């Protein structure tokens, strides 16, 4: 809501790839008349309108809620997942962060387990398959006991909420030199392990999710910590340490 009306121009370097099987390349675009209050994705809306009017294929880029909660958006901006600011999603990033006339390099989240579908859109369904292998509490609708029957200590509930805040955007994988999904999987493992409701399936859950993580082709965590730095929801790498302990415990039990 600044009263400065000055607009800005940028040189964009954008990854273009027609479909998963084809090879891609970087393409250059000039964008002008960008209001500094615009979000990064609105700048792309404007670029795509211009391309459409010129009869060119717009850049495919994913987004939905545009308020930082659905986890749909996510691109690497100048090499950083979700761009230069810490702890926000691509949709929350504003153009006022980019000086007038600067060059901005935009690429998809890169990982073997996230194949490119088109341009900046990748397939993150591997995350769903990890959750499928145990990232829940097995309860059929109708069979739940009264909600206050089992108290949960407030500190446990608050810590569980910290981990449950993950939006599944995949920035952690894109940031990791090994393309590991450890931060994503561990957030869910830790969250459910902290709750009394999560205890009956504690062993099977961590085993199933870790095995699926490996099967999907994600790398192993070697404690770089890049994931935590890129996470828009500030999920801590303490979750990964907790997942390791859970996995060790489960392995011994499965003996």
């Amino acid at each position, binding site marked *: *809501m*600044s009263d400065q009306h000055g607009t800005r121009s940028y040189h964009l370097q954008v990854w273009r790839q027609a479909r998963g099987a084809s090879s891609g390349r970087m393409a250059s675009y000039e964008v002008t008349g960008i209001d500094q209050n615009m979000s990064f994705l609105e700048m792309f*809306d404007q670029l795509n309108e211009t391309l459409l009017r010129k009869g060119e294929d717009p850049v495919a880029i994913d987004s*939905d*809620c545009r308020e930082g909660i659905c986890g749909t958006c996510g691109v690497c901006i100048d090499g950083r997942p979700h761009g230069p600011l810490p702890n926000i999603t691509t949709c929350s990033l504003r153009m006022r962060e980019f000086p007038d006339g600067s060059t901005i390099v935009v690429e998809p989240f890169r990982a073997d387990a996230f194949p490119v579908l088109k341009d900046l859109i990748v397939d993150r369904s591997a995350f769903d398959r990890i959750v499928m292998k145990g990232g*829940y*509490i097995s309860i059929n609708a109708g069979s739940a006991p009264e909600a206050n029957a089992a*108290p949960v200590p407030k500190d446990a509930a608050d810590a569980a909420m910290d981990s449950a805040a993950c939006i599944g955007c995949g920035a952690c994988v894109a940031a990791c030199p090994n393309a590991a999904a450890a931060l994503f999987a561990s957030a869910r493992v830790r969250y459910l392990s902290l709750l009394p409701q999560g205890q009956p399936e504690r062993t099977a859950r961590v085993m199933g999710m870790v095995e699926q993580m490996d099967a999907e082709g994600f790398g192993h965590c070697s404690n770089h910590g890049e994931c935590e730095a890129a996470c828009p929801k500030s999920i801590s790498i303490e979750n990964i340490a907790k997942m390791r302990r859970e996995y060790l415990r489960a392995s011994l039990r499965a003996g």
Partner: protein
Amino acid sequence: MNAPALREIDVKDDLDSRVPDGPIQTKWERHRFDMKLVNPANKRKYTIIVVGTGLAGGSAAASLGELGYNVLNFCTHDSPRRAHSVAAQGGINAAKNYTNDGDSIWRLFYDTIKGGDFRAREANVHRLAEMSVSIIDQCVAQGVPFAREYGGLLANRSFGGAQVSRTFYARGQTGQQLLLGAYGSLMRQVNAGRVKLFPRREMLDLVVVDGHARGIICRNLVDGKIERYAADAVVVATGGYSTAYFLSTNAVNSNATAIWRCHKRGAYFANPCFMQIHPTCIPQLGEGQSKLTLMSESLRNDGRIWVPTVPDDARIPRDIPEAERDYFLERIYPAFGNLVPRDVASRAAKRICDEGQGVGLTKRAVYLDFSDAIGRLGEATVRERYGNLFDMYHEITAENPYRTPMQIYPAPHYTMGGLWVDYNLMSTIPGLHVIGEANFSDHGANRLGASALMQGLCDGYFVLPYTIGNYLAGVAPGKIGTDHPAFAGAEGDVNRQVAKLLSMKGKRTARELHWQLGRVLWDQCGMERSGAGLLATIEKIRELRAEFWTNVRVEGSAEDLNQSLEYAGRVADYFELGELIALDALSRDESCGCHLRVEHQSPEGEPIRDDEDFAYVAAWEWKGEGARPGLHREKLVFDNVHLAVRNYK
């Protein structure tokens, strides 16, 4: 019905809501006994399509899988966890009465009927209030990390002006956590093989065979292939249609296409003009803006709303002396002040801006000022209460609300209207069930805060799994395959539209035309409507639609991931829906809930409801392109809650 546009409308009072007899408290219990059941061994023989994976669709698909049905579950997102339910901040209501402050099922029922300004069906609302307690049990058992007290029990807060504390919440992310609960249950069923998931699919048509819903046509959004899916019943849970207004708080991919295509196949559309405007959104910052961001209305608890008395006052807000500020809500509504209901606050803000007193870049904003609260409570307390909202505001606007007043403006947020359903949540097409925001539902002409999440989960976990069995018990499973001619017919229609959109190569983009439609709807069919304005709006929308179908430009190929094609298809439907919204608003010649007709207000500007003539649900029947839709009225009877007039003065 005097306007020429209304004279030719065929009106019938022929809708059967199938509400069971007996006292309201026992209707649902009796109905559950009276409904037919599907034998447990036979359930696996039935296939059910569920479109949508939000709170309603996700919970329904999971629950139907748990019961043993074969479920095919579709969403446009790359993962079911991203449906727009994820963005709900505030909380979910339930009549648990944990706070011992006088809540009950009856009170939640009463508040919802009254909040909806007596335009909802009593029996449905009572069932919703009954089920609310089971929803919390279910979610806690799934591990939803609701806020808790130090003793380990669940915490509650008062929300949206309710007199009791009945709202459960998980920080500012209640929708996300409830959705992840339903998503977990859904993925468990996917793992068990009972639910098959189809992400990145957009439903583009409903297949009706011998009058019954028997399948859908989808576009695979990755490779563009048009796909056919057959089933014994179809459930549509694709959310609301606020995005017709272009700028709204909804996600950019939220759309009306699935429900609109069902409407064109025979499902009546109820109360399309009932749409809720949320008062506390961050205003538009420029013309390139794609959506508006909502901030919790709890801000109004401590913030004071004002504008400068002189238009175009160029001074910074803190330099404007008290005498030159108009605290217009406190002035007009001294009893409730800044805490008047959503629609009253929204209307007053729009009116003051229309009169030229707005502030900010676009002059379409009012100040929400916390300086008094900071003086009274200290900055630390204000930070504790609203810190996350202030941070969000700062992130978007680069302004510090601790130092300078926020700017806010109302925005389209939720649609109470939707496809008409009976007590069994079945539409006027047998076999087509509609749940969540996609149906016209339980909120009447205005929805209470923290009730949308409740309704979505109620429909999906606890109502549809029973009522769909009642339908299926009368159907022989698996009789219709995708080789039936009706599938080829529907697929042909879809292909023709796709080809048309790609062939025009016109000069306007779908986005420009959508933006124009949104402006027309917002100005004439938002918070305040007039007969003359609505008539002009209908004409304007027709012009825009004609321009769209001759001059829109869509690039790329049909056999590819093509976002401009997806979007153009949705915009095409907004024009038809937009016209129906305006027509419905025109025919509802009264003020009620969020819907204010300027012809029907008191000298003080309060809405005047007309129960004599308009205590009905208006359900519209599609009668073909260019033809006047038919109106089917469902008379609303209030046996349990006395019709009363709202008064916030």
